[in-house]
């Protein structure tokens, strides 16, 4: 009886693997998206996409993966179930990063060469507004309530707060050199921006627009210039922040309350962008120089495995 029960459990486990998710990785130099099975961590498909795929984003309904095909000047839509490109969306020139409104109706896209943020009405497949910002817009982050979009501009070194209703810049915050990514804390109280050349993460109060803290990175054995923060990810409970440190080949684990760096996790080379598994038990990092992704166990705060993907992996997103 016991044996029967055990085998039944084993059968169920087989039928429903612990990580049934798909991991999508954009390969900037291969013009492909690699699809990795979250359970076996094996590549299941390499999908040909537009030129220079960079940021990728899951639609709010989880059915589509949006891909910034930067040199094709458009967004592509990948069906998560069939792994086929099902269509394209206008993006404005050279889309680099983007974010979605909470209801999924609008995408906000940074047009790196055109110094503006485009508002894309997804259903109408139309750019409905363009907001001018500084030079080389990159990071885009929508507030949890959808009312504000923060865009960072790399050469202007600012975080621009855009009112999505008025379609206007309402505040500009000067941060350290070459800001890349903006991220809202889950409670919407703060916006964190990473300055790649400045080597800091600025913590901005989302109401007053004042910088309340600049987080620096001191990694034993590395000169300070090596820590070049890019992607920032918060756990849903807001209790932990992960910051990818580029050529330092590490991900910093930060306590968002004390702003203290608790740990540096060694990953692959030139780690820029990251994505959580849907259950947030794992964090995946795209390593642009070693051409792989690293799987981090979130609870253990440890790198557990690397998976080779295409050339210059840029973004990584996991879908259930």
């Amino acid at each position, binding site marked *: 009886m016991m044996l029967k029960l055990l085998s039944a459990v084993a059968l169920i486990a087989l039928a429903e693997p612990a990580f049934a998710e798909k991991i999508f990785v954009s390969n900037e130099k291969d013009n492909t998206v690699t699809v990795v099975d979250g359970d076996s961590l094996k590549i299941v498909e390499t999908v040909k996409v537009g030129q220079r795929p960079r940021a990728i984003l899951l639609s709010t309904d989880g059915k589509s993966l949006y891909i910034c095909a930067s040199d094709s000047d458009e967004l592509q839509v990948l069906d998560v179930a069939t792994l086929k490109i099902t269509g394209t969306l206008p993006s404005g020139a050279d889309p680099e990063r983007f974010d979605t409104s909470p209801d999924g109706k609008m995408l906000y896209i940074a047009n790196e060469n055109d110094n503006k943020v485009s508002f894309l009405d997804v259903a109408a497949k139309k750019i409905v507004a363009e907001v*001018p910002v500084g030079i080389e817009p990159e990071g885009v982050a929508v507030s949890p309530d959808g009312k504000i979009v923060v865009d960072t501009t790399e050469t202007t070194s600012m975080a*621009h707060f855009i009112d999505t209703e008025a379609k206007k810049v309402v505040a500009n915050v000067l941060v350290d050199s070459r800001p890349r990514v903006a991220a809202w804390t889950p409670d919407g109280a703060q916006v964190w921006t990473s300055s790649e050349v*400045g080597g800091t993460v600025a913590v901005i109060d989302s109401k007053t627009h004042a910088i309340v803290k600049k987080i620096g990175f001191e990694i034993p054995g590395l000169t300070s*210039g090596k820590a*070049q923060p890019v992607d920032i990810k918060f756990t849903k409970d807001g209790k932990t922040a992960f910051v990818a440190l580029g050529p330092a080949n590490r991900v910093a684990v930060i306590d968002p309350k004390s702003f203290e760096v608790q740990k540096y996790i060694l990953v692959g080379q030139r780690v820029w962008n990251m994505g959580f598994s849907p259950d947030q038990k794992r964090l995946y990092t795209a390593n642009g120089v070693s051409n792989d992704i690293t799987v981090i166990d979130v609870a253990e705060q440890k790198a557990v495995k690397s998976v080779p993907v295409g050339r210059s992996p840029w973004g990584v997103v996991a879908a259930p």
Partner: protein
Amino acid sequence: MSDLVAIMKLLGLFALGALVATPSFGPSAFAQTPSPPIEIDYLGLKVERTLPLSYLDQPPADEGVQGARVAMADNQTTGQFLGQTYHLTEDIVPDAAGAVDAFKKRIAAGTKLFVTDLPAPILLQVADLPEAKDVTVLDATAHDDALRAESCRKNVLHTAISRAMQADALMQYMMTKKWGKIALIIGGDPADKLYADAVRNSARKFRIKIVKEIPWTFDPGSRRTDTGHYAVEAEVARITQDVDDYDLAVVADEADNFGDELPYRTTEPRPVAGTQGMVPAAWARPFEQWGATQLQSRFLKATGRWMTDNDYGAWLAVRAVGEAATRGSTTDPAKIGEFMRGKDFDVAGFKGTKLTFRDWDGQLRQPVLLADARSLVSVSPQPGFLHQFSELDTLGVDRPETKCHM
């Protein structure tokens, strides 16, 4: 159409252009009312450049100034969020007297920030004018080591890299490759002698041996005529025979007179580096790392040609002014000059690190690229060349050795 209508139309067009170019923001987007523009003068010598050896790369007539213009657009965009505006005047002069005249005129009009594309003697002539005491001159194109040593000036900063930095970048790369021996081929121009000096100093520093110095004296005349290549090949083979074994042929030919004719023609098969072949430089066409692709494409779009080393020097100079104004929250040129020299200043130059000015000789610290026409080979400082304060100070003349006493 009457003239009046034509003018009206023209004005209308301009107004439209202004609207498109200057986006309007909500009132809260602007913190301050705009201050008077920050005046920058670009002062360049009109150079009668001789045709280079390769027909493929004709020297652009607007080298340098285009870098300043692209940086101006960058500064203006940032400035609009801070209520700061910039204004660039351009003086391209025929000679030293013209440079002095233009410089005096601009100072009289209140300009205190200058970006120069001037050879060392003229640069010193303007920097030493009594009127120039309180100005900041950003030297965008002169590589002379003397300008960072015995001829350094308090009012001059250098965004161009020095020959010492170029040579050190190359020697560091040789060290990482464990290449220890050089054959040094030196052209006849005075600049080539200075380049060779820098190579000698650097080789001494890194204990690399120069097995032979070979002066280039050959003038092949019409080498582009049919069969001209035979004479060139024979000459290069001749001068590189009877040379003790070497790892790298280093060429000093700043005016592009012959260096491109060395590769593949030496008696022993050896790679060529220096002013041709693999070139240590501040900027290079194949360079695309650290977001450099953005600047490359922005420049290409704005000017219709590729960015050169001199364009990059001028771009950095104007951007340095912009960064100092932005970070120092000031439009006062004296304060901008002060801020640039201070410890809170840095400028991002698409090289993955902060660029700052050395306080002992006014040189902007920066990584040096090693690239040929089609590929980026490496970037110095090489890994493992460590420094007490900044690894970038392993390139060029460091504080303890400086001969600059301002």
